[in-house]
């Protein structure tokens, strides 16, 4: 028989396995090779980071109104701050900026409300965002109703144009993509071959050529006077192109749903659209979030290609500003700014998709 009466008090774990030192030892200096790698990589990172920080922040100039104010030798952000309005609003008349601001604020508010956990009636809010809000936004941007002055689309530009292209592309390509994916899996041969042909044709050509065709070729075919707005043509081109990609992502998700789910839905008497809408798509979309967001991010960046058909999105308008003789030589600042803005938007989408995935995962239980 063994009896052990002396109680061992709780001891802290040995210092070498916890805390900062423990972490460093375990992850960065666990072996000779690892230590050398850590030192080399650390040297490369730090030796590049210091000049970068120096250029971006320490020796940079932020305030002023001409290149003469850039005296510190680092980045000349004056170029950006002076033209920031143009970069955001394009050639939109200054007196009407409030219209774009209103849309920005509304959109930001709606997205925040949709992300926030406790919002009641999220379904209705989502439907409003997708169906009603675009109409409001259109009339605000374009005008022509409620006594608002019409602002022709060739005056749109900068970040606001980029966001218009991206939002319309995202909102329109998802439903089209769903329909195309369902069409490609349909039992009806005509629907199936049409969907397949559509997807393969659009997926097989570069977006640049789609945009070119939309802006140069389409007017040749569409008869004479009824000239379609250039922005509208670009939007249609982008939407068609991205729906084809979206369709393939969605088809991948649909294929992952077991056959038994379709059968159970049918056996309960649900018709095709109800089984898709209530059973199959909700499950498939959850699986497809990473792929869908990946497509959205690609779409967002691809919007910058519209510059080749003469639309001034954020990148194009910054490029145009770079060729201003008063600001020659500040292209690095311009491109860094554009890259940073694009990155902010794409990175937010990526974070949101990760949060969404986590939420749906815990919410739906295992299986």
């Amino acid at each position, binding site marked *: 028989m063994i009896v052990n009466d002396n109680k061992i008090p709780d001891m802290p774990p040995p210092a070498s396995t916890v805390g900062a030192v423990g972490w460093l030892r375990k992850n960065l200096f666990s072996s000779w090779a690892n230590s050398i790698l850590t030192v080399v990589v650390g040297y490369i990172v730090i030796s590049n980071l210091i000049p970068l920080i120096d250029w971006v922040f320490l020796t940079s100039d932020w305030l002023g109104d001409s290149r003469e104010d850039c005296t510190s030798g680092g980045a000349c952000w004056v170029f950006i701050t002076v033209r920031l309005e143009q970069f955001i609003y394009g050639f939109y008349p200054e007196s009407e900026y409030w219209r774009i601001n209103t849309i920005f604020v509304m959109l930001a508010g709606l997205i925040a409300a949709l992300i926030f956990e406790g919002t009641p009636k999220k379904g209705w809010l989502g439907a409003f965002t997708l169906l009603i809000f675009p109409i409001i936004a259109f009339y605000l941007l374009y005008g022509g109703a409620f006594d608002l002055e019409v602002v022709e689309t060739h005056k749109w530009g900068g970040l606001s144009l980029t966001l218009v292209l991206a939002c319309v592309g995202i909102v329109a390509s998802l439903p089209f993509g769903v329909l195309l994916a369902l069409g490609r899996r349909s039992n009806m041969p005509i629907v199936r071959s049409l969907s397949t042909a559509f997807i393969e044709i659009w997926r097989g050509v570069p977006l640049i050529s789609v945009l070119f065709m939309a802006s140069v070729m389409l007017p040749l075919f569409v008869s004479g006077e009824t000239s379609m707005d250039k922005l509208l043509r670009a939007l249609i081109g982008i939407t068609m192109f991205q729906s084809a990609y979206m369709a393939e992502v969605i088809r991948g998700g649909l294929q992952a749903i*077991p056959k*038994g*789910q379709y*059968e*159970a*839905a*049918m*056996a*309960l*008497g*649900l*018709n095709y659209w*109800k089984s898709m809408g*209530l*059973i199959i798509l*909700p*499950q498939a979309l*959850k699986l497809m979030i990473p792929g869908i967001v990946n497509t959205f991010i690609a779409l967002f960046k691809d919007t910058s290609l519209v510059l080749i058909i003469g639309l001034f999105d954020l990148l194009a308008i910054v490029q145009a500003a770079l060729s201003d003789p008063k600001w020659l030589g500040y292209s690095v600042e311009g491109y860094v700014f554009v890259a940073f803005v694009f990155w902010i938007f794409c990175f937010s989408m990526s974070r949101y998709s990760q949060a969404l995935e986590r939420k749906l995962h815990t919410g*739906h*239980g*295992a*299986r």
Partner: protein
Amino acid sequence: MSTQNNNVSSEIMIQLKGVNKWYGEFHVLKDIDLSVSKGERIVVCGPSGSGKSTMIRCLNRLEEHQQGQILVGKTELTNDIKNIETIRREVGMVFQHFNLFPHLTVLENCCLAPIWVRKVPRKDAEATAMKYLERVKIPDQAYKYPGQLSGGQQQRVAIARSLCMNPEVMLFDEPTSALDPEMIKEVLDVMIELAHEGMTMICVTHEMGFAKTVANRVIFMDGGQIIEENNPHEFFDNPQSERTQLFLSQILAH
């Protein structure tokens, strides 16, 4: 032929006349004739690949037959989507792998079809669902997701889900063969209770105990044909065909 004819009426519920089906060149169902009266409990057995699943899946058009006639109630199964939908509303089906909807709670699984197909108000649908969940003895799991339940519980939910549509006929395709032995009984108990309440049932199963207690008729299939059809007593004690004898000796051996 049948001995256990309690509450079997003469009203015909399901009728198959000369049904044939092919998968490509492969002849799966050969001249199937069968008629099932209201309140009857039929057990279908036979070796793997004999066409049992195919036959009962033809009854609600999960599979399409190419020749012959299938009548459910008074409706004939044709390509007319109206007829198919009418029949699917009246015929419940329970699958080997449960096929619950994993993104919905147990209660939502049960309410979905009544709400969307029968247009029952949500409150009534939920009340009915709770009633059937109580019948299958898992009302306390109503707000869980299927992934959080055991196999036996999932299958009982699947039965409740079908019952919520208030079907005239229930089809079971090997409802217990994906279950661990200790869970088989809980599912069979529910099915036995259902049989005693007079539900018309067609059940593909190898649970011979179940066949002996509740079936009016046992059907033995092999190679796409109905080889033998008899009341359970005669079927087990005095099988007529050689293939039936061989099959019974194999499944009763262990």
